[in-house]
């Protein structure tokens, strides 16, 4: 095996890469701080947040309030916007200096872009797209057991990285509940880790960024979800969602077909959601989808196929054509307003 650059016995603490947009932390980073805190308490390790960027003072103060024992700040003008080379160089320097035992990333576009490269630079293992994390305290060097939902249905695999450090993982947004802001006096300490980035090694340049209003379905109280069965038209679902104050969600097929934005995808590749109620229309209920509604309080499924597996994962089952159920349902709800 590739020799680990960091020895297990010198590796320490649980680290979370804190993704941000310059003003606030990404939701999944707060989720990882919450889970990281839990793992840290259970194992007696410390929890560290790694904040990278340029001119981060206010964000660094903000980040202290979410349960980390320490926020390590790495700043450089070249970290103003995300580029793989600059961020990977900086992250590798921090890791080799501070020797984390565990290093967690959100499975966002940038999180995956960075973690995939950093793991190879550090010659260590990376478990991608985890749906749960646990710590084995009976192991001498605190082993992370990272769970990934295996494909083919019904089974999750637990992946471990026994000898190489840090033990790296990316985690789906929405899997854990976000950390709550703590009161003053319970905050961690802040430190800086100097990094040096060679501008000549930054081989991509950001010319333009267009970020729209990002939807975050992981926070929705109610979801109206469409799959292939909506046949390209989310119109009825949108009307229903409007009446219920719900967000729209979708299966992967509906997203891949280009019927709706990717941010609304539910499931293994999409988000794990925890609404009070999810109304799932024209979705067959593949395991990769249902992992995303497992945490819903109530699931209503509308599907014309009585054999559809989605009915196994539903509290209320309607075996019917969604196009004949939704219009009268919308009328009912409109009338009772």
């Amino acid at each position: 095996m590739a020799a680990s650059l960091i020895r297990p016995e010198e590796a320490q603490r649980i680290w979370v890469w804190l993704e941000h947009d310059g003003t606030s932390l990404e939701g999944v980073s707060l989720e990882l701080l919450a889970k990281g805190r839990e793992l840290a308490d259970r194992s007696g390790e410390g929890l560290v947040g790694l904040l990278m960027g340029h001119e981060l003072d206010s964000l660094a103060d903000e980040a202290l309030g979410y349960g980390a024992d320490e926020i390590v700040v790495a700043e450089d003008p070249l970290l103003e916007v995300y580029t793989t080379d600059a961020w990977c160089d900086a992250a590798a320097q921090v890791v080799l200096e501070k020797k984390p035992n565990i290093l967690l990333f959100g499975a966002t576009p940038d999180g995956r872009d960075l973690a995939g490269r950093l793991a190879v630079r550090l010659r260590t293992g990376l478990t991608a797209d985890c749906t749960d994390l646990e710590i084995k305290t009976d192991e001498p060097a605190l082993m992370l057991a990272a769970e990934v939902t295996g494909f083919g249905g019904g089974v999750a695999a637990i992946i471990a990285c026994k000898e190489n450090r840090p033990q790296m993982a990316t985690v789906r947004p929405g899997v854990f509940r976000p950390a709550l802001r703590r009161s003053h006096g319970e905050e961690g300490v802040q430190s800086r880790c100097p990094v040096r980035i060679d501008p000549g090694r930054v081989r991509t340049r950001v010319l333009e960024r267009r970020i729209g209003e990002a939807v975050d379905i992981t926070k929705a109280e109610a979801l109206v979800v469409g799959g292939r069965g909506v046949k390209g038209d989310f119109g009825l679902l949108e009307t229903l969602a409007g009446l219920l104050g719900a967000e729209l969600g979708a299966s992967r097929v509906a997203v891949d077909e280009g019927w709706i934005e990717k941010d609304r995808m539910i499931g293994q590749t999409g988000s794990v959601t925890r609404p009070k109620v999810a109304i799932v229309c024209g979705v067959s209920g593949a395991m990769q989808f249902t992992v995303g509604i497992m945490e819903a309080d109530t699931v209503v499924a509308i599907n014309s196929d009585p054999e559809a597996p989605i009915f196994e994962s539903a509290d209320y089952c309607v075996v019917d054509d969604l196009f004949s159920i939704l219009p009268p349902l919308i009328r009912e709800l409109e009338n009772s307003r």
Partner: protein
Amino acid sequence: MNPASNNGLRTIVCLKVVPRPEEVRVDAETMTLDRAGAQSFINPPDLNALETALKLKDACGGEVSILSMGPPFFEPYLRLALAVGADRAFLLSDRAFGGADTLATTYTLAKGVEKIGAFDLVLCGEESLDGATAQVPPGLAEWLDVAQVTCALEIEKVPGKREMRVQRELKGGSETLSVDLPAVVSVKANVNEPRFIDYDRMEWALQEAPVGVWGAGDLATDPELTGLAGSPTTVAGVRQVATPDRRRKHLSGSAGEIARALADLLRTQTGSRGG
């Protein structure tokens, strides 16, 4: 790395053959994927990567090579890629490569890229269907020490420069990057419409074209870095995913009756699972 080529782009497309997801079962005893009997196909986004490569070749000239690591049964799929329009294909196949995680896979693929020779662009799919998730392209870029872009939506060559213009997906939007060549770029699924097999190429592609098959000896790979031996991660266990106990109550009647029942339910829905 390589001097600028005046003869268009030398592109390598990394292509993987995956079993149809719905046909794979997990053998809970051996903790392995049981793909026996499962039909295979080319990982769908890899066909989008191939189409991207062929479009770039149409625009700038050059040549397109296919690179894949996997068992010998991958070969006919590589020939399909030749029939679609690729010029050469190479399969990295050796028992020693089996059981590789991302670190070992990307090491081996990087050795394959190096053996193919000078290149401008390596194109991959955004992710493979069978478990591994989007980590091969960044890992490969690291071993090769070149620029990387993941989740590309659009790729254009900048005329007269060793540079590409790439639009990349972000959370809630996209960004446009200028990228120095050589580079590894992973292409989003469905960004283009992969072309069909070119029937004029069929006979050549399926029968005559040589597909290079390289093993550990050909690549001079370090046995400590390939396959199971080179993989820092291991499967420590499998677990049945517990599905939450749902009520599975069927609502029946006319569409109107069902709608009324659902409306009542949604109005009174307190959010507690209960009952």
